[in-house]
């Protein structure tokens, strides 16, 4: 079965500093990986995805993620955090069977302080 682990419940970073939100996955075969962001009382907004190709994927709002097959990781990064980046971030992997349902991690709350 596919699974995703987000080892940190919360990440704290000062505005202007780089941020990393960690994600590791377990899947048979090639993974299709996604990051979503959720602001308070809002839905899930797509940030970026990895299907194939370059290991460094660029997404919305200046975020990027690096796919590392040997470490089975897909960490989300941003060179310079903004206070407005404070939100809940979910990593997700697409299942290989069925009609492409997403399996989500437990989420990481990012808190960017001024």
């Amino acid at each position, binding site marked *: 079965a596919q699974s995703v682990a987000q080892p940190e419940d919360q990440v704290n970073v000062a505005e202007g500093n780089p941020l990393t939100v960690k994600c590791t996955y377990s899947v048979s075969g090639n993974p*299709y990986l*996604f990051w*979503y962001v959720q602001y308070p009382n*809002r*839905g*899930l*907004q*797509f940030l970026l*995805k990895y*299907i194939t190709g370059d290991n460094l994927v660029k997404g919305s709002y200046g975020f990027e993620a690096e796919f590392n097959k040997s470490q089975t990781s897909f960490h989300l990064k941003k060179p310079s955090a903004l206070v407005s980046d404070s939100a809940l971030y*979910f990593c*997700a992997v*697409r299942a290989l069977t*069925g*009609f*492409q*349902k*997403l*399996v*989500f*991690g*437990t*989420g990481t709350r990012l808190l960017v302080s001024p």
Partner: protein
Amino acid sequence: EPEVTQTPSHQVTQMGQEVILRCVPISNHLYFYWYRQILGQKVEFLVSFYNNEISEKSEIFDDQFSVERPDGSNFTLKIRSTKLEDSAMYFCASSEDFNYGYTFGSGTRLTVV
């Protein structure tokens, strides 16, 4: 940019009552999903729907749940007899093709009292 629209944004219902959560997926999308998120917890898959039938469902999606695409534009989730533990945020999503990702609606917060 096309959106997935969900109504209502918040619904309060008495335990044992039936509720219908409504979604309008993006018009050219072919795959439809319902997920739920109990407050502060992970997002869980409920059901996927393709070609007018359920293609996959989770253990959560028991006989109390049903989905329907009644008119080619709406996609509904019905809970026949709500329980307190059904209180959650319910997200609808649609996808044209998995290579293009999934678009989620803004959710319906269901509160069962």
